[in-house]
């Protein structure tokens, strides 16, 4: 049983997502997007709670912040004692697009079972200079190049969205 949860935070505020599992063999993919382009606090909290063994999770979050936005992403993977055979990976990547924006990244783990695989990764930074240079060297202006890079960055998550309506809505936005 495989299913997907999508959470998009595009206005200041808070969104809290809890993922749990009904039975063994369930697989959940969580896709999170934070599009913070206004001043304000954006807080995304995700909890993947493995109370049952042999369940699988994949969490991918991409966030961008500009215009004085402040984003905070907290992602927690929890595996209780008897939930063996769990495999989970959480990844959050946040891009700060200007000097006014800020980010707090908190990837957390609470693991009480040992026959498991759990890992997480988080990065926070600005647009890679190398990527920018590469596009500019192909004749693309800086502003355009940045848009391309940001779109590509967010598409890493958007492209995986299964719901066609949600997907097309997000793809239509200009970042």
């Amino acid at each position, binding site marked *: 049983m495989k299913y997907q949860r999508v959470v998009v935070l595009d206005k200041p505020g808070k969104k809290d997502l809890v993922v749990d599992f009904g039975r063994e063999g369930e697989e959940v993919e969580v896709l999170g997007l934070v599009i913070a382009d206004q001043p304000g606090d954006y807080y995304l909290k995700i909890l993947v709670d493995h109370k049952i063994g042999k369940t699988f999770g994949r969490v991918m979050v991409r966030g961008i912040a500009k215009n004085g936005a402040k984003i905070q992403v907290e992602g927690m993977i929890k595996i209780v004692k008897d939930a063996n055979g769990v495999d989970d990976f959480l990844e959050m990547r946040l891009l*700060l697009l200007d000097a006014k924006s800020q980010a707090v990244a908190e*990837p957390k783990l609470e*693991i009480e079972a*040992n026959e498991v695989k759990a*890992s997480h990764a988080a990065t*926070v930074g600005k647009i890679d200079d190398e990527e920018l240079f590469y596009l500019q060297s192909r004749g693309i202006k800086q502003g355009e190049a940045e848009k391309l890079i940001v779109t590509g960055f967010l598409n890493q998550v958007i492209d995986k969205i299964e719901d066609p309506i949600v997907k097309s809505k997000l793809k239509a936005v200009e970042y």
Partner: protein
Amino acid sequence: MSRFAKIVKLDQKAVKTLSESYQLGHHDEITYEYKSERGLTAKMVADLSSRKNEPEWMKELRLRAFGLYEMMPMPGWVPDMSGINWNEIYYYLAPTKGTSKTWEEVPDAIKKTFDKIGVPQAEREMLSGVKAQYDSEVIYGSLRKSLSAKGVVFLGMDDGLAKYPELVKEYFSRIVPLGDNKLAALNSAVWSGGSFIYVPKNVEVELPLQAYFRINAENAGQFERTLIIADEGSKVHYVEGCSAPAYSSGSLHAAVVEIIVKKGARVQYTTIQNWYKNVYNLVTKRAWVEEEGQMRWIDGNLGSRLTVKYPACILAGRKARGETLSIAMAGSGQHQDAGAKMIHLAPETTSQIISKSISKNGGRATYRGLVKINKGARGARSKVVCDALILDPRSRSDTYPTNIILENEVSLEHEATVSKVGEDQLFYLMSRGLPEHEAEAMIVNGFLEPIMKQIPLEYAVEMNRLVELEMEGSVG
């Protein structure tokens, strides 16, 4: 449980006897010059300062700290310390001149551990609290001569205060302010013992300076205060602790370590902590790093019932670099709550945190970290790697990192993995003839290797053996 090996039964009787005889030691007739009644008062603090003949400013500082200690609550984010009854703890306020315990009274299990690790006799006696003085006149004498020829100061903290009051006054509690947290306040009020080190400009101290080389090593260092000042361009490596189990009569250790790394200086501070399993080990360690300075904390946490320690670096000058390499091993009844803090205040500062933890037999290993990159710290880079091994179903591992980024021209990377020892790796080594527990110990040591290789060889060898010892008890 293991499918490979036979079950190894824990020798229940030996464990019980050990804890009984330990209780005995706790209430034993250890002569102290001055033993406080339960609880702590301002008068005791003032008296302590007077007996030590301290300058007035230090007495005032202690009293201010005491006031803060009384007022402050325990910090919100630390693990449950409700097991400590603050009024019941004896605050040993004066150093012992000698104890009435003998080597024979030290529990067998502890003696055996010393044997296995190969700790020299003199060290054993000192570590088990039998001798308060390390009889190292000869070694220490020549060490001091060569150091002082270079202008290096290496004294006990009390001596340091007496001989270099101006220097101490300039830095004492500047890096860890009195009100930083409740435990630091306590330490500032009742501190005793610890090391004072000053390294002059451009002097490189080749030999690692070791805590037990200090003459008059005070009893068990419950409230040790260490201050290290590395002047511009200097280099020094300080090693604290020992991998042999430290048998302590005090159950609360609240130490503070302050380090100043001036421009271009390089300091490494290595701690291998293996306090006996009743100790609450709560330490505040912080380094202030100036331009192009480098600070490296190596933190090995093997013992104690609860250790709470987050060696921190404040990267205050351009291109300052901070590193914390931390190993935590949590066995039965233990909680290692360790990690690091890196605060980037200046541009082009870099930090690295590597944390490797192992939990087994129901132990709990927690990584708690903070990386904060302030506005203005352009070009800052930070990388955090935390790997955890959970060896059995009863144990637990947590990772609580907080990364606060207030500047955009930076890069932060963080990764963490939790796993168990791979069955295929075990099979591979066993197929080459290693019995299961040896194979597991080898894999665990391999897991710790990236950090071990940064520790001076003799300690690394001892630590490896200690890990193997700890592993022996883990099968079954």
